[in-house]
């Protein structure tokens, strides 16, 4: 995406009504100072607008409700959303594999349960962003008790083949991350596009394009993203012709006890 394309999207982005995948835009802003300056200007302008609304008075008891909810969330070992709370994100990939095995996602992990280390190794080669992810999860800075992970399995659509699993990591301190593992896909369908969808219609994030599959029709992709992944609860995989191949929902699972590092 070039500067002209980015500039065209910035007003809606600033106003919070951007449509579609913002990841390319965010990526551009991460290195283009001129567009970033424009984005900040527009965001500052949009940020003021909220205060133009005619004030309304909330009920007095709302304060206690809010204070109680935040206080409870901050001291509770479980999140109110029911999403997994991982105390040591440094082991999050392994924790995800354990959780998925426990959920009976045989198609994915029966193949792969003995290959977890190999999967990670392959992914490092396939996707340089995974290397960054591993660095992040092993760094002390990443150890954050407020980190959330949402897991889900991917199932074939109609009479299609393949299956998969996906994991998103939402962190308050570092960039959010997503990992998707697929297997059993037909090579002739490549390249496949992996997309995260949010509840808001039209809000999506292209995670990766899978151009090459391993001998089992599988691939592992991982990506570190600058935007907040809160609310991105659905994963879809489409083939080269745009047909839906796999789909799955991420969400609440039983808590995962973190293995020792």
């Amino acid at each position: 995406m070039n500067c002209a394309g980015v500039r065209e999207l910035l007003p809606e982005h600033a106003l919070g009504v951007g449509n579609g995948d913002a990841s390319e835009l965010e990526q551009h802003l991460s290195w283009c100072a001129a567009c970033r300056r424009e984005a900040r200007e527009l965001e500052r302008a949009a940020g003021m607008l909220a205060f133009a609304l005619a004030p309304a008075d909330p009920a007095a008891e709302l304060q206690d409700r809010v204070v109680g909810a935040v206080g409870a969330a901050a001291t509770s070992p479980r999140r109110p959303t029911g999403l997994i709370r991982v105390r040591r994100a440094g082991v999050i990939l392994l924790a995800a594999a354990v959780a998925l095995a426990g959920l009976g996602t045989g198609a994915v992990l029966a193949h792969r349960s003995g290959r977890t280390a190999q999967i990670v190794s392959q992914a490092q080669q396939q996707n340089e962003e995974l290397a960054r992810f591993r660095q992040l999860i092993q760094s002390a800075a990443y150890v954050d008790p407020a980190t959330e992970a949402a897991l889900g399995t991917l199932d074939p659509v109609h009479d299609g083949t393949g299956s998969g699993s996906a994991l998103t990591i939402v962190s308050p301190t570092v960039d959010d991350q997503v990992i998707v593992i697929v297997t059993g896909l037909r090579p002739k369908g490549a390249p496949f596009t992996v997309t995260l969808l949010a509840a808001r219609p039209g809000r999506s994030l292209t995670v990766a394009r899978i151009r090459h599959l391993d001998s089992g029709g599988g691939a592992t992709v991982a990506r570190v993203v600058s935007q907040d992944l809160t609310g991105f609860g659905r994963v879809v995989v489409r083939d080269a012709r745009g047909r839906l191949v796999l789909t799955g929902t991420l969400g609440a699972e039983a808590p995962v006890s973190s293995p020792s590092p």
Partner: protein
Amino acid sequence: MQGHVNEGPLLPREERQLMEGLLAGDDAAIRALYARFGRPVYTMGLRLLGSREAAEELTQDVFLTAWRKAARFDPLRGRLSTWLMTIAHNLAVDRLRRDTGVSRPHLVLVDEVPDAPGIDEEAVLMERDEALRALASLSDAEKRLIARTYFRGMTAREIAEADGIPLGTVKTRLRSALIKVRRANEEKEPS
């Protein structure tokens, strides 16, 4: 919460202090944040979503989200008020667009400021004053355009289709309106 937070506009150091308190679940910090920003957040919910119940739910969600994202807040990149209201706006628009069929409330952009505001509300009222002044720099058509996007969650494409005008025109007008808002505000900022 450690340290003292002034009653006027917050300094970056004080904003960071409040957010550290929020992250830790400190009761005083949460109450201080609510005292300053609870009302505008609730207002956003009520005006965009149209019911007290939805506004209360949104307010609670905004502060929970702020707690979850507290460590991401960087006072050097922008004011705490803007950051919180961006969270509120995103959550409200998400809900607005999800709840199809819900009648959209009538928006009141300009109203009388209530008498005798509390000390904690003064900074927010100053921001309201700035916002109204900035909006006053827009033409009626630009105000309507901003209202339809920011306050009603309509995309440029939806507006273009509804009004039968080119998408590019809507985008250009949106940018122009935002730049005007920003410039009007800049003129008020101390150099």
